[in-house]
């Protein structure tokens, strides 16, 4: 038996898992980019100048044309091929090293109209950090092409001949560079090439042109061309000599640009490479990390630490550097050139608290393209586990109870039927999860910011679920039957096993599960919301598989169903009892509705549900009488009536802000407001912020069991905590943004702020216990002790 069980499980359960696995593998294949290749012909192209063997580096002078016409623009560049692990430096080398320098000379210099050379294109550099993390430099490993545009004169002439057919120009370049691995070697190379300018234009070999193109694509462009807006933020109004400060470069998709640059992610690993600061005389700047933009979806802030020297600072100092990001359409390299306000040493500057809070590296939106396979696997495993645990959440209970009931029935029915039902239920779950995922993708695409459980903020949706539940309950009471053939009358207890019904139960389970899913799915869903569309679909589907797994297992593994009780009279009673469980769920739904609509509207909703019940009963009567057509006509009429009536109900959600604090009286909480939180922290008070919603049962459970606990209340009182509550029952952008700031897409979220560290609150788990909360409160009230144990290496 056991061996049979072990063999059966993978074969039966496996196909959906297999599908997920295939999806995973294809995802991984898509994310693994093609490795750049060094074209063989590139070096040969420089044969005239001769590739010069410099220590640890081979340099060649390249042109993207063999011959050119007057007036043409030719790209010229010096190509560095470096031994592995050796690197050369950017125009700003960082804390050691030496910038790479190119000095060009164009001959003949006496030409009446000499060719002109444009600025050097510096590709976005990499960040090198020595093993001990003490010294950071910026440069290039493996290879580098530093190129510039050479614009040839319109008219060629030489001393000997005023109108020659062609002339030869000589291009000389002196490269001065430092190449380092652990040791450093200064290098210098002189290279030259001749270019014939005449009637014929001949492109260089394809590899050379491709090399120019590849490095040109890595050259940062102005923000407007990249389709982003950039803005500098500082922790104070101006920087004085001797000041230590924080700065940030906020990057957002520019709305004026038609091309959507998508959610922005740090593009380089480590994320410190997302911004490489250029040299700022008198100021040391170093990237400290990145964080999600607190206000704008998909935006990013690259955070910097700065320290100004004692010497007077130039008045026109700029914050310059290069951003390397990952957008929806691949890597983005953006030139940064922003104002850096300076002031005299004796000037008065104001700290900007709001900015300060955004200028510490924060929860980072995980990189879409740079997702490692292990990260994806972890998220999928988490999603599966979350789906599994969802079965134990109160929301899904009614549906689960029905499933237990039908399992008992099926256990003794035919095996094929049992498996069929299991699969039907699973497909119901997965289909609705995918539908949900598509809605999320669509909403995100339309620029609507959504959070998990968002559906319950929509009164019509709540009403719809309520209606379905009432109909479902009536079905359990035996008022009518659901079967593929709507008019087929079947014996009570037998009709309840149709595949269509199982499918429908799957849908319902998902619909009911969403508000309960936060505690176990918050992380996975947060991950999903920041992911590509394919990842969202994969994650949601996996959650579905998890949710359906227990039922699927029972129906598919023959051994398990043997433990189910025999069917009998008791099943009829259980069926009716479960109907009442569903009606109970309707009461809960109405209580959600009650918190967002007027009470008069609630009476109308009840009347509406009564009409639904009446229609269902009439349908049942016709069905029982075997009247096929009248039943069908009634069903259609019924649906039409529902469709017209429902939107007419006065269900407009009240705007946020009305009667918000009504039920959080137990903690004496004020409505959440970021400015208020900052103010309390400035006054030296510790702050506890919690985010909740009426439709979030976990939130309510925590509030009942933990917040109302006498010891918790006493502790909050005695430690002098200010408490804020963010109620997300109705849509609220400020709250959604705050959740997103901590990588969450769902409530509950609990934050404990210490006044000594206003920028880094402690994020508590979604399921609280009084002890856990009290410990966190004490840590925050004590303050600095936390810095060492919570943030890890921060103190060093």
């Amino acid at each position: 038996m056991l061996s049979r069980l072990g063999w059966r499980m993978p074969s039966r359960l496996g196909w959906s898992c297999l599908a997920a696995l295939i999806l995973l593998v294809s995802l991984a294949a898509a994310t693994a980019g093609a490795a750049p290749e060094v074209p063989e012909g590139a070096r040969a192209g420089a044969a005239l100048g001769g590739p010069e063997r410099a220590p640890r580096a081979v340099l060649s002078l390249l042109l993207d044309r063999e011959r050119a016409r007057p007036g043409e623009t030719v790209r010229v560049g010096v190509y560095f091929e470096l031994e592995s692990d050796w690197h050369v430096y950017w125009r700003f080398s960082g804390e050691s090293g030496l910038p790479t320098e190119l000095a060009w000379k164009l001959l003949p210099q006496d030409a009446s109209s000499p060719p002109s050379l444009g600025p050097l294109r510096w590709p976005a550099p990499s960040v090198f950090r020595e093993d001990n993390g003490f010294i950071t430099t910026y440069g290039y490993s493996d290879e580098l092409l530093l190129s510039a545009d050479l614009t040839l004169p319109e008219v060629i002439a030489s001393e000997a001949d005023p109108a020659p057919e062609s002339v030869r120009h000589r291009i000389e370049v002196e490269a001065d560079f430092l190449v380092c691995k652990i040791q450093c070697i200064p290098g210098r190379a002189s290279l030259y090439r001749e270019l014939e300018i005449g009637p014929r234009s001949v492109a260089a070999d394809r590899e050379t042109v491709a090399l120019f193109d590849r490095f040109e694509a890595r050259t940062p462009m102005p923000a407007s061309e990249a389709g982003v807006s950039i803005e500098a933020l500082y922790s104070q109004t101006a920087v004085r000599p001797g000041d230590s400060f924080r700065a940030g470069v906020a990057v957002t998709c520019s709305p004026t640009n038609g091309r959507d640059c998508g959610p922005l992610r740090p593009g380089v690993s480590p994320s410190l490479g997302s911004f490489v600061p250029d040299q700022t005389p008198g100021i040391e700047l170093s990237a400290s990390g990145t964080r999600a933009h607190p206000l704008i979806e998909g935006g990013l802030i690259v955070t910097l630490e700065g320290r100004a020297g004692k010497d007077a600072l130039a008045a026109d100092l700029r914050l310059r550097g290069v951003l390397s990001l990952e957008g929806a359409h691949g890597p983005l390299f953006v030139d940064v050139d922003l104002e850096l306000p300076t002031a005299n040493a004796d000037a008065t500057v104001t700290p900007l608290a709001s900015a300060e809070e955004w200028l510490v590296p924060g929860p980072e939106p995980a990189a879409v393209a740079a997702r490692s396979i292990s990260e994806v696997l972890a998220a999928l495993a988490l999603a599966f586990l979350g789906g599994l645990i969802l079965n134990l959440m109160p929301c899904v209970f009614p549906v689960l109870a029905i499933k237990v009931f039908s399992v008992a029935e099926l256990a003794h029915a035919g095996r094929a039927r049992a498996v069929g039902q299991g699969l039907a239920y699973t497909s119901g779950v997965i289909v609705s999860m995918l539908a949900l995922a598509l809605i999320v993708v669509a909403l995100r695409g339309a620029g609507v910011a959504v959070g998990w459980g968002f559906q319950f903020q929509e009164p019509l949706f709540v009403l719809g679920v309520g209606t379905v539940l009432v109909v479902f309950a009536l079905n359990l009471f035996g008022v009518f039957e659901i079967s593929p053939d709507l008019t087929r009358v079947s014996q009570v207890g037998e009709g309840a096993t149709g595949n269509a019904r199982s499918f429908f139960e799957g849908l319902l389970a998902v619909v009911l599960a969403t508000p309960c899913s936060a505690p176990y799915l918050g992380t996975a869903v947060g991950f999903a919301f920041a992911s590509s569309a394919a990842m969202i679909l994969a994650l949601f589907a996996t959650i579905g598989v998890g949710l359906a797994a227990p039922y699927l297992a029972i129906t598919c593994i023959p051994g398990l169903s043997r433990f189910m009780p025999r069917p009998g009279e008791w099943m009829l009673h259980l069926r009716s009892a479960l109907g009442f469980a569903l009606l109970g769920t309707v009461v809960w739904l109405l209580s959600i509705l009650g918190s967002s609509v007027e009470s008069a509207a609630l009476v109308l909703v009840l009347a509406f549900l009564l009409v639904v019940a009446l229609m269902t009963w009439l349908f049942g009567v016709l069905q029982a009488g075997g009247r096929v057509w009248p039943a069908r006509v009634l069903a259609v009429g019924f649906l039409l009536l529902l469709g017209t009536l429902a939107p007419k109900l006065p269900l407009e959600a009240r705007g946020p802000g009305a009667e918000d604090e009504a039920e959080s009286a137990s903690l004496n909480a004020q409505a959440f407001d970021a400015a208020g939180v900052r103010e309390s922290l400035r006054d030296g008070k510790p702050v506890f912020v919690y985010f909740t919603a009426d439709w979030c049962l976990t939130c309510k459970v925590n509030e009942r069991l933990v917040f109302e606990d006498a010891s918790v209340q006493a502790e909050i009182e005695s430690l002098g905590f200010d408490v804020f509550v963010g109620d997300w029952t109705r849509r609220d952008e400020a709250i959604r943004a705050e959740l997103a700031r901590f990588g969450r897409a769902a409530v509950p979220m609990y934050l404990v702020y210490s006044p000594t560290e206003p920028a880094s609150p402690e994020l508590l788990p979604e399921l609280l216990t009084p002890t856990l909360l009290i410990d966190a409160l004490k840590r925050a009230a004590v303050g600095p002790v936390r810095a060492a144990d919570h943030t890890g290496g921060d103190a060093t």
Partner: protein
Amino acid sequence: MKRSTWMAALLVLPWMLGSHTVQAASPAVGDLVPDVTVKDETGKAHKLSDYRGKVVVFEWTNQDCPFVKRHYKADTMEKLSAELGAKEVVWFAVNSTYSNKPEDTLAWKEKQGFEYLTLQDASGELGKLMGAKTTPHMYVVNPDGKLAYQGAIDDDPRGRSDSPKNYVRGAAAALLDGLEPDPSSTQPYGCSVKYASN
């Protein structure tokens, strides 16, 4: 369990990445320099605060670094230290190279023929406290034990100039005249200091 580990990693990672960029420990110009005791190549211990009352120059060095070699070939350090030594300025070379041993310093000293002592900082303690990044990285400390200049030895990182502007000479001269060095801080150049990785 899986979830909490993941969450923890998510929360802590940015902090770990960000943490070591804050070099609040190293003194800025105007701050007291750390008071530590370091041995020279002869084994004699020097407590930095014992040199209060004098202008002290620290020269981060590494005899394998091409930038250091260039300056020793040009006698930059030898000449300047002799010139300043006549004015009671104390000159210390500091070697924070993890692999450097006192006998290496002695051999180098004999070859180059300079007089001043080289503090043996293979542990990197002094170098990291001071925030030394390159060889050569120069520090000038005023008689109150406060940092008065930090940065490059001169304005000629590539060794092209015939008469480079020597910042250390300027800084020491200003201090001896009771003035503040200007510039008080420049971008040091050279090889990175080869610290022991820890």
